[in-house]
């Protein structure tokens, strides 16, 4: 929900005007061809794991959408999904794999793909070629080649491919970009960006012993054993580790808000904590610190990103855009979000009067105020944005996808736009073992 003068319609307009890289749906050509017999968009969810279940919550509350099938290779998840949807009032078919889905469903318009990353490209390509529109979770693929093939298939088929960087459809993010960063230029000239997502130590995922898949079932889909199946994110050839699992969302915001991909990356990181015998053997780094450089018209912006899986310290997960007039600490969590004004900045009263921002309550004066070091810059004045959002965080992104299918919106994160972001994320993973600055040309980020 959006406050007072800022309406949902304005956000849809803002989304449509968000600039380069947005892709128009093929309008009437798509609309009509893709309408189901029941007048709704018939959708299948491929992958009923943790991601898929979160997406399902949104699918169930979006008008005009009929979930008709779920797909999962794990019988436990398949049965669970079918029973779950029945409890929610939906009778759906359940399939083991996408080939069976495509063979069995003849009135399907779109699929939502939420499988492990290494299955994204084969499933997306097959579904696009079968005439379906595809919403695929990020990362597009565990390889650059896989991601590129998805964009090429999108272009060849003319079908829509939305990638699940859901912040691109989040009304709070769109408001912040259009009104705080661009419209009001409240941060002035952006000079630095700092993002992070830190999580405390976590055990490997388990599974109900009575619901194990057989070695043959696992091998059929590329898994060595149940542990690898449940913890695929940690293994090369399957996922991209924490930089791609967590960092992808935020590094995508770096590129989106700065209006271009990075031109270089250097990084440090390693697999330093999760080691046998305390933990099962893993492949991917458990910590990473990355620096990107963005050449902007007024000078280079450097963006630091860190992901830690051994500590939740550092104030949660956010993307912090810093300029000479102010700074915006942006997060999907409104409690973490804050806007700060430098003392030198022009007055923000106009933006307060326009109801875009409001002054935050002043923090209590420190008890030992007399000890404040006078060499420090004065504390920044804090403001809040006058925008709120109380839906499921993936809902607007899925709605954007479905509205694009209907010819009523542009995709906010089409495959080719997502590719530019994901390319530089893959490059960060390469930069860690390379131990050197890697240049990224404007040509190579194009699929």
């Amino acid at each position, binding site marked *: 929900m959006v406050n007072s003068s800022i309406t949902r319609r304005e956000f849809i307009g803002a989304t449509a005007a968000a600039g380069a890289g947005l892709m128009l749906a093929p309008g009437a050509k798509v609309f009509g061809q893709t309408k189901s017999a029941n007048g709704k968009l018939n959708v299948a969810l491929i992958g009923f794991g943790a991601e898929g279940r979160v997406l399902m919550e949104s699918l169930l509350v979006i008008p005009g959408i009929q979930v008709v099938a779920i797909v999962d290779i794990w019988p436990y998840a398949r049965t669970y999904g079918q029973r*779950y949807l029945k*409890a929610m009032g939906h009778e759906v078919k359940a399939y083991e794999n996408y080939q069976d889905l495509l063979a069995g469903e003849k009135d399907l318009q779109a699929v939502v793909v939420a499988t492990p990353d290494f299955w994204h490209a084969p499933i997306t390509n097959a579904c696009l070629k079968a005439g379906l529109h595809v919403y695929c979770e990020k990362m597009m693929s565990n390889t650059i080649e896989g991601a590129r093939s998805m964009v090429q298939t999108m272009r060849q088929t003319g079908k829509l491919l939305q990638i699940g960087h859901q912040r691109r459809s989040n009304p709070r993010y769109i408001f912040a970009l259009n009104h705080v960063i661009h419209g009001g230029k409240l941060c002035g000239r952006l000079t630095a960006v700092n993002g992070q997502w830190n999580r405390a130590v*976590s055990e490997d995922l388990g599974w109900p012993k009575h619901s194990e898949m057989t070695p043959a079932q696992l091998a059929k889909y590329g898994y060595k054993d149940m542990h690898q199946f449940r913890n695929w994110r940690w293994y090369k050839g399957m996922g991209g580790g924490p930089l791609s699992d967590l960092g992808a969302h935020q590094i995508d915001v770096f590129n989106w808000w700065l209006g271009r991909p990075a031109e270089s990356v250097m990084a440090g990181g390693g697999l330093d904590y999760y080691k046998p015998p305390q933990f099962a053997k893993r492949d991917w780094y458990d910590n990473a610190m990355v620096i990107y450089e963005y050449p902007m018209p007024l000078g280079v912006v450097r963006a630091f990103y860190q992901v830690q899986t051994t500590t939740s310290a550092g104030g949660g997960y956010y993307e912090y855009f810093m300029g000479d007039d102010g700074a915006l600490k942006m997060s999907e969590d409104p409690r973490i979000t804050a806007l700060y004004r430098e003392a030198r900045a022009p007055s923000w009263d106009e933006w307060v009067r326009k109801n875009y921002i409001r002054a935050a309550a002043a923090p209590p004066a420190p008890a030992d105020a007399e000890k404040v070091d006078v060499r420090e810059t004065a504390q920044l004045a804090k403001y809040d944005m006058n925008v709120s959002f109380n839906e499921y965080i993936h809902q607007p992104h899925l709605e954007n996808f479905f509205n694009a299918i209907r010819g009523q919106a542009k995709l906010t994160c089409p495959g080719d736009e997502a590719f530019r972001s994901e390319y530089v994320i893959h490059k960060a993973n390469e930069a860690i073992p390379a131990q050197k600055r890697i240049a990224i040309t404007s040509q190579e980020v194009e699929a």
Partner: protein
Amino acid sequence: MKNVFVLAVLFAVATASAEDMVPLKTKLPPPLFVGTPVPINVPNLEPPQHGKRPDFMVPKGTVNLALNKKVTSSDSEPIVGTLDLITDGDKDGDEGSWVELGPGKQWVQIDLGKEADIYAVIVWHYHSQARVYRDVVVQISDDPKFEKGVTTIFNNDYANELGLGAGKDLAYIETYQGKLMDAKGAKGRYVRLYSKGNTTNKLNHYIEVEVWGKPAS
């Protein structure tokens, strides 16, 4: 002189009572966090707990009376999992450790076998994701139908959605530490726990429920 004597007696009683009280010691599961965090916006939400829960004192000899006891429910056919998971001693947040009940108002009920003095109930609904369960009500009674002799020890159903009466307890975010509810020595054989969905979906989940007490004297 008389006042001094009364004070001395009160001090002696208080000292004896304090010596008979010990911290409740439950074994906590490992923290687990999966997926994208969901911003939580619910009314009457207590601030997130930082660090370990403060010690909760119970009479010496207090044990978890619910372990391996029979559980019944308003939903006799859970969507996933089985009711015995609620009292099996496994508090892990992972797949296979929780039971999922249908949408809307649901309850589970633990039969302790005989009447007990109950000092605390600890509930783990679901802790692999930060979420809030709505309209949590916990009651104790000797009546398996909960029609008479009901003691409510926790109620955060501030809008009386369940029809059991409005409560003033705060909503809370699930964590691996579970939620400890002070039962204040209430007597009863049955413990019933209600909820009505959560901030992620309309369903109801239980990983484990512990009922800390002593058989009634």
